[in-house]
């Protein structure tokens, strides 16, 4: 009896010491966990770009003499595996912060764990607005989560801003059909589209949502064509190659414009055998586009090290390592609450623009501030195997061009 009690006491002491924030020596490394979808094109850039940033910081002597150490986990695009990786990162590998995932479903699954384990987590690529809405709803618990990429609501607003210039003003377009995959991130995206498209003068004729498992897009394109819109406004990320190839092989005469995450990948042309020609897509970066002075040096360094161009989540993951490092420096300790405060004070010019997090009073607290002077995004088009930037005008490096089968303005 006595024996087992003592055993229990010992176990409890062990458990407490394991849970407590590790007190680190002054020269101990700053550990950052990186949880990503390593087999997906968008996800595979996350650990690579983070490593690049860490190497750069370490080559310059680290942060106040402390090196950055990354611990990388592959979640195989599964929320359950991501949660296990997060627990391991915090409880066993004792990371100070986590950079996690480009999938909203995964980040939403991790958010309560960031709260429970009181560990700063930032996503380089998820888009669901619910992530920041959860923080607004229960700030004290969820304040550890930061949204390091644009929310779907922001994406919708940026798409509308460019559609106004590129479609409505340039081609006098009047009608649109929204075509989105059924996923967590597109619910707020579609809501945003339905609100902002009429404001810029595009009447929404229909909203077509389809399962992300869809392989045959023939019925979807036929339905949309029957409605005779001037433009298809897209919200696709899990799918991309298949609708694009079928858009071309069926010669759908309507331009596709909007979010098409897979189109941001440099491999998209090859994956679609060139069917990508003419596809218009929103992005935060593009080849050869100097959004900030840091953009092109990053792309060059990444290309040199890994032999391919970074995905969109690569840019943000790279910036996030720097942001965390700076926040650790500002906080002056590894205390997670102090780290949250320091992260909130971020004002950092990264590779995609100037990064500031929205304040506690905002319904999307810890989301990125968008607009002029912060992040405006770009609008690119695939042309002859290259991604050409068309918007905003001061960063454009080409003119819009449609494949022969697209009849702009003739659908009416």
């Amino acid at each position, binding site marked *: 009896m006595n024996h087992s009690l003592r055993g229990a006491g010992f176990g409890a002491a062990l458990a407490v010491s394991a849970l407590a924030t590790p007190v680190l020596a002054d020269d101990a490394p700053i550990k950052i966990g990186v949880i990503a979808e390593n*087999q*997906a*094109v968008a996800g*595979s850039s996350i650990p690579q770009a983070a490593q690049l940033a860490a190497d750069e910081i370490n080559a310059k002597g680290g942060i106040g003499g402390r090196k950055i150490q990354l611990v990388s986990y592959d979640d195989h*695009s599964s929320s359950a595996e991501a949660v296990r990786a997060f627990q391991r990162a915090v409880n066993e590998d004792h990371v100070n912060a986590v950079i996690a995932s480009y999938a909203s479903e995964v980040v939403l699954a991790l958010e309560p764990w960031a709260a429970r384990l009181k560990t700063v987590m930032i996503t380089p690529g998820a888009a669901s607005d619910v992530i920041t809405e959860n923080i607004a709803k229960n700030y004290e618990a969820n304040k550890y989560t930061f949204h390091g990429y644009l929310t779907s609501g922001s994406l919708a607003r940026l798409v509308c801003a460019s559609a106004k210039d590129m479609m409505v003003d340039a081609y006098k377009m009047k009608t649109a059909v929204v075509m989105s995959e*059924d996923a967590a991130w597109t619910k707020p995206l579609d809501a945003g589209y339905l609100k902002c498209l009429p404001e810029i003068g595009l009447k929404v004729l229909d909203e*077509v*949502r*389809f*399962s992300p*498992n*869809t*392989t*045959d*897009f*023939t*019925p*979807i394109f*036929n*339905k949309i064509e029957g409605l005779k819109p001037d433009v298809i406004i897209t919200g696709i990320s899990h*799918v*991309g*190659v*298949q609708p694009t*190839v*079928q858009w071309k*092989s*069926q*010669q759908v005469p309507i331009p596709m414009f909007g979010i098409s995450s*897979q189109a941001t*990948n440099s*491999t998209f042309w*090859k*994956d*679609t*055998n060139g*069917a990508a020609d003419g596809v218009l897509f929103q992005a935060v970066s593009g080849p050869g586009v100097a959004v900030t002075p840091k953009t092109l040096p990053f792309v060059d360094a990444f290309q040199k090290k890994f032999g391919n161009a970074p995905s969109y989540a690569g840019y943000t993951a790279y910036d996030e390592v720097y942001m965390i490092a700076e926040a650790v420096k500002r906080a002056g300790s590894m205390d997670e609450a102090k780290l949250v405060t320091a992260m909130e004070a971020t004002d950092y010019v990264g590779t995609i623009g100037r990064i500031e997090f929205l304040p506690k009073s905002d319904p999307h607290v810890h989301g990125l501030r968008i607009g002029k002077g912060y992040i405006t995004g770009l609008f690119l088009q695939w042309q002859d195997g290259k991604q050409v930037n068309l918007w905003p005008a001061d960063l454009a490096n080409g003119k819009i061009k449609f494949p022969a089968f697209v009849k702009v303005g003739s659908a009416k």
Partner: protein
Amino acid sequence: MLGWQILIDGFAISSLYALGATGFTLIFGVTGVLNLSHGGLMVAAAVGAWAAGSYWGFGALASAAVGVGACLILALATYGLIVRRLQLTTKIREEEKEIFILTATLLWGIMIQEAIAYLFTNNAKTVLPIVEGVVELAGVRTPKNELFTALICWIAIAGLWLAVNRSRVGKILLAASMNPRGVTLLGVELSRVYLAVWVIYGALAGVAGVLLGMFLGVSSYSAGPLTASAFSIVVLGGLGSVSGSLIAAYVVGYLETLTAYLISPAYREIPALLLLVIVMYVRPRGLLGRR
């Protein structure tokens, strides 16, 4: 107009389902093996053809041949390294072998799928089309590729039918599916019959995979759903019955197309699965099943 559209689109997709399921049911009918790596093999064919086109600059036909070849090699590996070993081993009791083979092919399929994801990422790929452009068919703008897909599927199925019913090898296959012991008593080496079936199967699955990659595109994720779809078509048609599978492929293909057009593309697969459940209750041996 909508009617024609459903008729044409449904025909192409159903033909593809039919070809995919034919090989699957043939293997089961003759050798008694349910090959759950079927989807993985089809994906390997499509990704092989894609890689040949985009990495090595092969033309459309040569790429397609590479894809079919890759599938054939993998099918033979499935037989030689996994199925045959388990059939011959004395460490597993005879009555348990079926479940061992089922599990082994399932795991093998997952290994193929993960290897493809590791080597080529899990992004969807599309195979270079052999024919491009569109034609007007009863007022429906139809990609020539879609018609080509249906045509090749039917040529392959017809070829199989001729081979089985008209050639000596085919007659042996048929006999082996009815009574394997009888065939051995006639002096035919059963293992050579099995090998022939796996070769035919590899070619059929390869053609189906390449056509699927050309028509719709595939990713490593498609492996599971492709196995499931072949499996449900074969169960619906009656395990081991080739003509049952053909009918079932058209039932499923048209049911899916009708749902996508008339209800919503989001619910495309549901009615076919409901039908499968109903058939399981009412007629467990499937439409044309023998047992």
